[in-house]
């Protein structure tokens, strides 16, 4: 999903995770109508629709392992399960050796990987990535995009919101272009055309 700043990309993401409610229309994920979710249903939505951000949003006083484990702990998963799932997921994102580090002790790319690992522990149906490479240099950005591609190949729908022309053009995937809050183009194999 591409579009200029202020065109409504982040608002769309916020609607998809139940942080904001649309004034009109309907949002359905699978068969689940999430347009008007009650406050106590939101935690369940967050386990189906995971999200990562430009600023990673890791808990600063927890290690990378604890950050990932936290997502499972909030859902009351057992300690055994957590100790088996978390290292696996962290290995997938390439953080197997840095689980005991705190966020401020690793690079931006590694922080984003930890955020992705946290998003993946529930095997969500959808992964929303809101400008995930915005704070990263081009090498780290490419690695994150490769990781997202791999996740998509495992069967998770990835919605990548970006205004990085290079990344969009190299991916050669479906591109939805937003302008002034409206979809102005939707191509099956698209290019960045703004």
């Amino acid at each position, binding site marked *: 999903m591409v579009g200029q700043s202020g065109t409504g990309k982040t608002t769309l993401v916020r609607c998809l*995770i139940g*942080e904001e409610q649309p004034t009109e229309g309907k949002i359905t994920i699978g068969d689940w109508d999430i347009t008007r979710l009650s*406050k*106590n249903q*939101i*935690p*369940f*939505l*967050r*386990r189906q629709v995971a*999200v990562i951000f430009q600023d990673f*949003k*890791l*808990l*600063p*006083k*927890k290690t990378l392992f604890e950050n990932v484990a*936290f*997502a499972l*702990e*909030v*859902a*009351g998963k*057992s*300690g055994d399960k957590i100790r088996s799932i978390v290292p696996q997921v962290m290995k997938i994102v390439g953080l197997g050796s840095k689980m005991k580090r705190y966020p401020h002790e690793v690079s931006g790319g590694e922080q984003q990987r930890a955020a992705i690992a*946290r998003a993946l522990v529930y095997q969500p149906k959808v992964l929303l990535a809101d400008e995930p490479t915005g704070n990263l240099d081009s090498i780290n950005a490419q690695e994150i995009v490769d990781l997202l591609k791999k996740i998509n190949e495992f069967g998770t729908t990835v919605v990548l919101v970006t205004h990085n022309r290079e990344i969009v053009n190299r991916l050669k995937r479906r591109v939805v272009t937003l302008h002034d809050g409206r979809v102005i183009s939707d191509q099956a194999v698209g290019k960045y055309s703004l």
Partner: protein
Amino acid sequence: MFISLARAAKFSLQDIIRNVWLSLVTIIILVLAFFSVNLLLSVQVISKAAIDTVRDKIDVSLYLKNDSAESDILALRAQISAMDNVREVIYVSKQQALEDFQTKHQNNPDILEALRELDTNPLSPSLIVRPSDINKYETLITNLNRLSSPIIESRNFDDQSLMLQKINSITDRVSQAGFVVSLLFIFITLLVLYNTIRVAIYTHRTEIGIERLVGASDWFIRAPFIISSLIYTLIGLILSSAIFYIFLTLLQPYLEAFFMNYSFNIINYFQANALQFFVLEFIGAALINITASLVAVRKYSNV
């Protein structure tokens, strides 16, 4: 449920240790708050004891004729004891009066010399009457004035009556002022506590947002803060109790000097009521802290 509670406790302890400076500051403020409340309490206790001592010293003396017979005196004493509002009647014999006089003036050789030059004991026996209820002092005076006995030499109670009125008005004002100051002070302490906890949670505002984003329920976000505030309250209370106890042991000698013969021990007072104070202070502070936690977390739990 149990696993969530255990996790909340784990997060709370982790947070206290990993934010050690913030935890220290919070605990220190709690210690100060508890200490001030205890201090206020002791001021109340001491001033009440002081008022009681003063009231306790109010008595009226009936001076008896020098040649009164012992049996007459004892009969009069029994008669007064039977009156309303009389706590006790102390008989001070001639000999006793002399001894008291000598002790009182033991540092004044001139007076003692003058006394020695007299062959006989110049002092008269007396009856000291202590009222049981200081507020019904007037009726006691009336009753004593009505008393007719040939052995009574003098009874002049006017001075005491005036003094008593003054003492009563002063002590009443002291306790009123004390009450108002206490209320004000407790209110300020509550505000300080409330804001301390709010500040502690303010520093966690981004974390609260992130926790919600990851799918934590309200309860799961709040529980660690509630547990932390209970832990802070408990540590603060234990520390302040220890410091306060040391403070009291330092204070007690001065109080003993101040109250002299009147037996008053503030350490005993606090020891006797320790459990009650501890529990009440803990509940009070914990309620404030939990309220502050809930309000603050609610405020910051929107991403």
